[in-house]
């Protein structure tokens, strides 16, 4: 089995809520338990999908791994090194090897910087390139890699002069220019037009081959996850409920939540319609997480134990993990 590039163990992020008058009187602390104890690894060279509805904690997980936010508990390993407690100075060489592409290319690029400056900034921060000439060469090369050709035509333009797809290419170039090993792609295509999404996914796949990348692909769109991912984890309210090979999960999902999620996805074929959605209601607030299995209030198969005990996240087939009492062996 290929070795793990990234490994997280019992990772948690609880955001404290601002205390109101009454809660401070009663001394009860309230937290948004955005990520609430997750364990998984991302193997070298794979595209690992993290899917879930809004509020499931997938974006928070991506940021925790890059240490853009500090975890409340748990460990993060990158290439075998525990980076959870590294100081920002110690972290700097790792930052170069792990980069992020954000969802919205209209927000993630500084409107006052030219494309050249946007991509040169990480080079300057990390002291790459002897002089501006050398940097210019690196930048031109990376622009070519993301298909912004000819690069000279883009160098001195500003983000507002580019289309959404071109901006996202600049964001990818900025991430790639440091030659990272690992990229967190947080909903990288959801703000783009339909006709250019495929192009962006194909570009990400090509770059993965060309630069030997590993991706964490965060998405709410299971159809694109199926297209690009090798493995996928499904999150619900801060926990991973199911994890496995993408084809396994798509063809034989086991967790009732994964099944409902897949059943709800419309298919671009008028002969296939969405059937009955077996679950009701909507994802509850991560402030008041239900006791026991956090999915039990919506689960059509909930048993008494589901209300009391949190199910263990365990491997039930080789490589297929699930947290559900329905699959308890006894």
């Amino acid at each position, binding site marked *: 089995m290929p070795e793990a590039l990234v490994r997280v163990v019992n990772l948690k992020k609880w955001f404290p809520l601002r205390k109101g008058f009454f809660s401070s009187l009663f001394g009860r602390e309230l937290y948004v338990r955005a990520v609430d104890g997750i364990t998984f690894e991302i193997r070298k060279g794979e595209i690992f999908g993290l899917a879930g509805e*809004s509020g499931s904690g997938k974006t928070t997980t991506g940021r925790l791994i890059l240490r853009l936010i500090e975890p409340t508990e748990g460990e993060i390993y990158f290439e075998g090194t525990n980076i959870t407690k590294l100081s920002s100075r110690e972290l700097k060489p790792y930052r170069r090897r792990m980069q992020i592409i954000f969802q919205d290319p209209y927000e993630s690029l500084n409107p006052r910087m030219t494309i050249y400056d946007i991509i040169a900034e990480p080079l300057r921060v990390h002291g790459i390139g002897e002089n501006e000439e050398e940097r210019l060469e690196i930048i031109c090369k990376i622009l070519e890699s993301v298909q912004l050709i000819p690069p000279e035509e883009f160098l001195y333009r500003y983000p507002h002069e580019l289309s959404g797809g071109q901006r996202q290419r600049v964001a990818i170039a900025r991430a790639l220019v440091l030659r990272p090993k690992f990229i967190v792609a947080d909903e990288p295509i959801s703000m783009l*037009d339909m006709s250019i999404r*495929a192009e962006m996914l194909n570009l990400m796949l090509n770059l993965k081959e060309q630069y030997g990348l590993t991706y964490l692909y965060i998405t709410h769109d299971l*159809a694109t996850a199926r297209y690009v991912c090798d493995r996928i984890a499904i999150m619900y309210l801060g926990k991973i409920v199911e994890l496995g090979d993408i084809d396994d999960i798509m063809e034989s999902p086991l967790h009732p939540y994964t099944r409902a999620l897949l059943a709800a*996805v419309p298919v*671009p074929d*008028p002969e296939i319609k969405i059937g009955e*959605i077996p679950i009701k209601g909507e994802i509850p607030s991560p402030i008041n997480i239900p006791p026991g299995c956090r999915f039990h209030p919506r689960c059509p198969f909930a048993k008494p134990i589901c209300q009391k005990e949190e199910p263990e996240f365990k491997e039930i087939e080789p490589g297929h993990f699930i947290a559900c009492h329905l699959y308890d062996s006894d």
Partner: protein
Amino acid sequence: MPLLSVESLRMYYQVGRGFVKAVDGVSFNLGKGETLGIAGESGCGKSSLALTLLRILPSNARIIDGSVLLEERDILKMNEETLRKEIRWKRISIVFQGAMNALNPVFRVGDQIAEAILLHEDVTKEEAHRRARELLKLVGIPPSRADNYPHEFSGGMKQRVMIAMALACNPDIVIADEPTTALDVIVQAQILKLLKDLRAKLNLSLILITHDLSIISEICDKVAIMYAGKIMEYGSAYDIFKNPLHPYTQGLIAAIPSIRGPKKKLRSIPGTPPDLLNPPSGCPFHPRCPYADEICRQEPPPLVRLGRDRYVVCHKIEEGSA
């Protein structure tokens, strides 16, 4: 005779540098109880088309040409008063994109629905409130929740309220502009199911505007594929998905992944959607079209009818070739 018949509709926005041709010669029919999907990418004019049908346009919009016949009466020729009293809400209503955020946070949900009824119909307050509760029930919300405020509702429930409001005056046609875009996939499936149920129960006609072809295939009988203010292809959902003829439609369908069926390599359409202020000459799709030649660059493509409810706007399609 269709319920709604749109013919050669043109609506341009006047801006400093000229005209933005947002709706540029659009024709389609909508029958009673039918659902038409209008699909297209951002900036193709699909939302502008919806606004034009109800004539709720900003002041710089100019309706240049065409007709919108609602049972033989041309909406474009009506005066504002007739439109307000007889058409909007009563015959055609609209659920806007992101409308769930348009609920007023300081009023009770029931009161907001009742207000819509009171504005358009001559009924007592009690009657309006009674109907508001009925409407909530119709969209799957317990009537007791009429006294709640919007913040007590989830996103999906707010969208249900907006649909209830659109149904307040028993319209024949509901236009839904990206009704599920901000919603999660399970809630989206619930809202689509609600729309289907309402359509069957009330014999509603729906115009569904979205960029998501999967949603169109889920709920629509007919589909119009829009590009640069024009409908490039129009036909039954079955024909559009199983036998797309326009290169743009073919490109769109090849570009979307599915969770079912064999995994295929996704193909993309090169280039980007055009600037409507300065659209390409000839066929607006020609800079991105793999089959484009000289005539496509120079002459606007003809509308080729291939049946009563099927047409393609393309130089490369010949009559009868479907």
